């Protein structure tokens, strides 16, 4: 997948906005949205929230995990543990990028949040590579990693599967055939 495709999936996540317009409930194929009343918070998918924000029709409320204290806790736990911390959202990286790019004025301490999320991402990717390396070195047949997000898997997945294909080819070419009469040439 392309990162843009993962982001497309992430945009279905819900976020709270405060609209400045009125609109009755609208019925879309994926579900109903609204009704919208000025000043009343309402939950909408991120794709709509971003669109409304760009048209200056709403104010975004950051998710409760997008907070310096909470993210520091997560980052510290990630650095301490060998396993992967369960993340507050399966699309934490994509949501951070989208909300901070389009609505940073609605998010307190946006720069610190960006740095904390990037640090957590870097730690997790390093852990993923470490895990992949030990999987390859010990030539395991099966591995299970909990709490990975789609974007993380997508960034290293192609490399890992091709490397494993390569290993498989090398291992299979070592099988000797049945020998009866052998002759060098």
């Amino acid at each position: 997948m392309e990162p843009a495709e993962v982001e497309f999936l992430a945009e279905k996540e819900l976020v709270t906005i405060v609209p400045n317009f009125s609109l009755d409930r609208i019925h879309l194929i994926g579900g109903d949205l609204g009704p919208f009343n000025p000043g009343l918070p309402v939950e909408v998918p991120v794709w709509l929230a971003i669109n409304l924000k760009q048209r200056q029709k709403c104010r975004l409320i950051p998710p409760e995990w997008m907070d310096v204290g909470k993210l520091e806790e997560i980052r510290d736990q990630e650095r301490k543990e060998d396993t992967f911390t369960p993340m507050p959202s399966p699309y934490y990286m994509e949501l951070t990028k989208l909300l901070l790019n389009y609505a940073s004025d609605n998010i307190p301490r946006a720069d610190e949040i960006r740095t904390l999320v990037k640090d957590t991402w870097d730690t997790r990717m390093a852990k993923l590579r470490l895990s992949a390396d030990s999987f390859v070195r010990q030539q395991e047949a099966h591995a299970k990693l909990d709490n990975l997000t789609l974007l993380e898997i997508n960034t290293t997945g192609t490399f890992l599967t091709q490397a494993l294909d390569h290993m498989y080819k090398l291992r299979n070419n070592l099988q000797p055939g049945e020998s009866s009469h052998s002759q060098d040439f």
Partner: protein
Amino acid sequence: MRGAGGGLRLTGWREPGPAMSEAYFPVGPGLGTEENFLSLDDILMSQEKLPGRAESTLPRLAVLMGQGAGSAESIPEVTEEGTRDTGTGHGTFIARFRRIMDSSQNAYNEDTSALVARLDELERALFQVGQKGLNDFQCWEKGQASQITASTLVQNYGKRKLTEVDG
């Protein structure tokens, strides 16, 4: 047909992505003892001449060997480049895997010639895959994934831009 002129398109299975972002889809080498007819890697690899040993009698095939075959009745063994050192190829790859993974996924916008100089062809292809994962991610993070840019193919045509044409 191999060696055919322009218009030959090598297609292979690949994951759905932005349509027409590339006009050339390389076919990878086959798995195990299989070869893919359209794979450039497999074509080049099977040209490699290696000493081989017939493990069973193959009568009347000496004619395939041409001159110098003598009384040999055998066909060259087809093996991957990695097994030329008889059996240590697998272990060598495992030892080098970490290096290739870390360097390909951490070197962003740098000159990587020193890193790839010591890799063989298949490892280089792997390195490119790692770099692509990194570059795609960085490009997305900067917001360039949603910008429309001219395709490299079109840029290579060297056409004049509209702004350069005299009114």
